[in-house]
Structure formats: C-alpha cells, structure tokens
C-alpha cells in the first residue's frame, strides 16, 4: 500500500492573528519500500509534513492514505494506535527522550506498549541492541552513562524493535561523528532493504544522493518537485533558483571545464569514473 497525500493543507493557529500556512495543497504518492528524502529549507514545511505521516498533525483540509488508515480533518484521536504502530516518527536528537533505568528496558518500552509480552519485548530488545551495533554488555547499564552516539542508537533501536512498516526520520545522523554517521545511515538502508519504507528529512544532499531513491522538495509549504535524485540533481539552474545545494560530487564536476558529463555525477565513484573516461578518450 502506497502513501497518498490528496490536496493536503495545514494551517497553524487558524482564525487567529498568528495564522500561518504550514502545508499548501500538497499532492503526492510514495511507493512501498522506497527510501524517500524530503528536502527544503528551514521553515519550508518538511517537519509539518512529517508530522502528518502518523496523524500527530491532521490536515486542515484534504486526505491522507497511509498504512491502511485514511486521515482526514475529521479523524478522531481515538483509534490511532494501529497507525502509530505501523508508522514511526523519529525526531531530531531522539536520545533526549530516553528515560528508563536500563538500556534494555528502554528499547523494550515501545514493543511492550504495542502489546508484546514482557518476555518477547526483552527478546526483540536484545536482538536490536546488537543489530544497531551496540556492545551487549551495556544492556543493563543506565542509558545516561553512554556517549551521545550510543544514546542515539539506543533510541533508534527502541523504534526499530517493533518494526514499523514506515520509518520517518528527521536528521537522524546530525551531530554524530563521521564513522557513527555512516553506520547509522547504513542501518536505515538495511532496514529499507528488509522490506520497509524509509522517509528521511535532511539537509545533507550527499545522504540524498547516496541513499535515497525518491525525493520530495518542499518550499513555503508547497511540494515543488517529486522525482528521482538523478532527475532532481540534473537541473542545476533549477536548484540554484531554489537555493538548494548539490551533492559534493556534482559540485566538483561543475567546476571542471572541458570535461563531458552526460548527467551530473552523484557520488565520488561515478565522478572519478567519468573523469578517467574523459582523460583516456
């Protein structure tokens, strides 16, 4: 089942002096199992959009179909538990939300909340502790004794442990060191490859080029483009017009004069291949 947004608008504080349009007639369809990046400037509506995926915000008008649920302005807050089990939002700096006395209990909290037995929850928690690359001997430690990068992984493990079909992440690797950042991004790629949908809100165009297969571009609450990364980054003048950055590889290529690139290279590997080809021809 794909995710469908039909004429979705959202207005903050309607009928008040602070009234502000958050989303403005947004229409799109995201395929199952995709790795979709949402890009755009601060204040463009990326986070507002993300909060609609599991009805933390409900549209002021329009309709959303997601994970077997239809969300409209009339949707009541009562029956959203199933939706939230299937669609998980991970906000920036999720480690700020850790609270349990041990790492294992913190990871097991989500699964228990969604009906796993104590025993099952502990089992999946243990499993995900390893899967996110944490040493097993920290299971009984307090999460607050860990380093920032480890805390981040505990928080993410707590979400992955109940295996949501759709995982939405807001800058999940911000503030991590380069090694930890790569590990984290590869974890999400694996999660997608295992048959889930991953939605990534980010400013990092290299992450978009390296991981995403689908891109939504937001500006002033409107979705101004929806396409594959190759297509989005192909149109340099359009990107400049909207003050969007390019991946480092295509930026590098743009500075080379006399070289022929059929399309802008998105990764260092393709950049180097094309440079070599040009030099040998």
């Amino acid at each position, binding site marked *: 089942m794909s995710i469908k947004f039909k004429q979705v608008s959202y207005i903050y504080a309607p009928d008040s002096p602070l009234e502000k349009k958050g989303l403005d007639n947004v229409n799109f369809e995201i395929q199952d199992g995709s790795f979709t990046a949402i890009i755009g400037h601060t204040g463009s509506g990326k986070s507002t959009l993300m909060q609609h995926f599991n009805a933390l915000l409900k549209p002021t008008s329009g309709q959303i179909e997601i994970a077997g649920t239809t969300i409209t302005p009339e949707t009541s807050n009562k029956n959203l538990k199933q939706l939230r089990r299937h669609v998980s939002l991970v906000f920036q700096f999720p480690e700020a939300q850790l609270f349990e006395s041990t790492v294992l209990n913190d990871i097991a909290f989500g699964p228990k909340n969604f009906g796993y037995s104590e025993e099952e929850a502990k089992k999946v928690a243990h499993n995900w502790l390893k899967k996110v690359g944490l040493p097993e001997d920290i299971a009984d430690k307090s999460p607050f004794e860990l380093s920032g990068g480890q805390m981040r992984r505990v928080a993410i493990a707590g979400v992955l442990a109940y295996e949501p079909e759709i995982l939405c992440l807001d800058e999940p690797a*911000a*503030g991590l060191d380069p090694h*930890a950042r790569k590990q984290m991004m590869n974890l999400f790629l694996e999660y997608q490859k295992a048959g889930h949908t991953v939605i990534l809100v980010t400013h990092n165009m290299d992450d978009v080029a390296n991981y995403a297969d689908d891109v939504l571009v937001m500006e002033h609450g409107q979705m101004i483009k929806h396409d594959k990364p190759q297509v989005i980054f192909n149109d340099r003048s359009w990107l400049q017009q909207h003050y969007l*950055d390019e991946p480092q590889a295509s930026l*590098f290529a743009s500075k*080379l004069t006399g070289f022929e690139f059929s399309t802008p290279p998105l990764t260092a590997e393709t950049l*180097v291949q094309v440079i*070599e080809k040009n030099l040998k021809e």
Partner: protein
Amino acid sequence: MATENIIKIKNVTFTYPDTKQPAIDNISFNIKRGTWTAIIGHNGSGKSTIIRLINGLLVPDNPEEASIEVDGFELNNDSVWDIRNKVGIVFQNPDNQFVGATVADDVAFGLENRGVPREEMLKIVPEAINAVGMADYTNSEPSSLSGGQKQRVAIAGIIAIKPKIIILDEATSMLDPEGRNKILQIVHQMKKEYGLTVISITHDIDEASLADQVIVMNDGKLIDQGSSSEIFSQTTLLKKLGLDVPFFEQVKDMLLERNINIPKTVNSEKELINFLCQLNSNK
C-alpha cells in the same frame, strides 16, 4: 602579559573516576594568540575533556608534572576564576545554555554575575547583541528563536564578558547549513575585531579547514598537529581514525588508485581542478 602562546599545555593526563583508560594521556601543545585552532577526533577521543581541563572544571591526575597556562597565568586554585573570565565556551545544544527570560536578560546574566554596574551593562548588552546581528530580537523569548539564533545569543553573552579565548564545543553540529555558516561568519568577524583566539571542537570538515592549526586526537592521545592542509592530506590516517576526509582529497586518492598521476604539490580543491583541466586539454 602578551606572551606569544596564549595557551600552554604540558604533560597533562586525566582519568575519569571509575575508568582505567585515561581520557587524556600525557598531552602537550601550545596555541598562539589570535589564531584559530580546530581539534578533531571521533566521539570519546578526549576533545571535550581538554576544554574542561583548560578552564579548570577538571583537574589533571598529575598536578606535580602537569602544567596548564592560560594568557600568562598558571592554572591553580587562585587563578581559576580569572582564567574562566578569559575563556568563553559555546556548547553543542542551544537549548541547554539559556537562563534569561529575554535575549537581553540572557546576555546580561554573565555581567550581573560579575557585578558590572547597571549603567555599563546598558551599554555593553546592546553592543554584544548588535555584534551577532540579533538586535531585532532584544526583547524576544529565547524559546521562540531558531537553533542558529540561540547560538548567536550564546555568543553575544560571551562577547559581553570580553574574553580572550572563545571555544566552540561542537557549537554548530545541531544547526542547519544556513545557521552553521552564519555562526562561523560571526565568530570570524569577532576574532578579527576583538583579537580573539578561537578553539573549535568539530566533526565538520569545512569548519575545521577554516583553522590556522588542526590538532588530531585519538583515545586521549594527541596524534598530530599542523596546518589544515598538512593534516587533511593524510587521508589514510584520517580514515583509520574514523574521521572525514575533504572531498577533493577523496577524489585525489581515487584517481591515484586508477593510475592517474597527480603531483604532490596539488593540495587544494582549486589546484586539483586546475590540474585535471590542464591534463584534459593537453591529452
């Protein structure tokens, strides 16, 4: 007091309680007055611990052999308060460093703490807020500001104290690219205007390459120290330590692997691009 090295660290070792491995393992280095130094290293390599030792929040294991000197003063129980007046630190999380109800109150906090008379504060506070480009927000609530704006207010609070040294402890890592560039631009301007010495602890390769000198830390040890081009051309070392390599260095390495000869003198993106363009037109 104008010695050439504003910070002198000698033979400092520090171990956190309940750990065996020292977080800082016999480190010595100097920082020249008025320069910009970047300290890089993976999480847990000891970068932030050094900062805490410099302003006396932590005390070395070996006070007899170790010495820390800031702006001509040896750090000890008597000098620690003077030294803290000379060192302003901007921390990573913009939400963890606010005390005032408005931007102006917050900037005034450090001055109040130091007993600065009100008439003087009325002059200093707007000046500091102006310097970081936040004059329009003087009476705003800090909670209504963006992350980048909050960090600018934190910098204003530091500028107001007129420190000699400003330390950015991953101060831009929680910001979006626009916020980050603005902060770095402001710090650069402050450095020029007030002759500040800047130390930035960072993972961001672009931020580190702005520095006059780069210090590389790993597992509590100082691994290397040099100009940014000296450090960032050592791609094998950086990769081994789990650190980022500038993009042009990555490209250079990959071209070398493909037997495209690039002379050792090519040490910047511009030089690499010029070299490749020449190679291509001469083929």
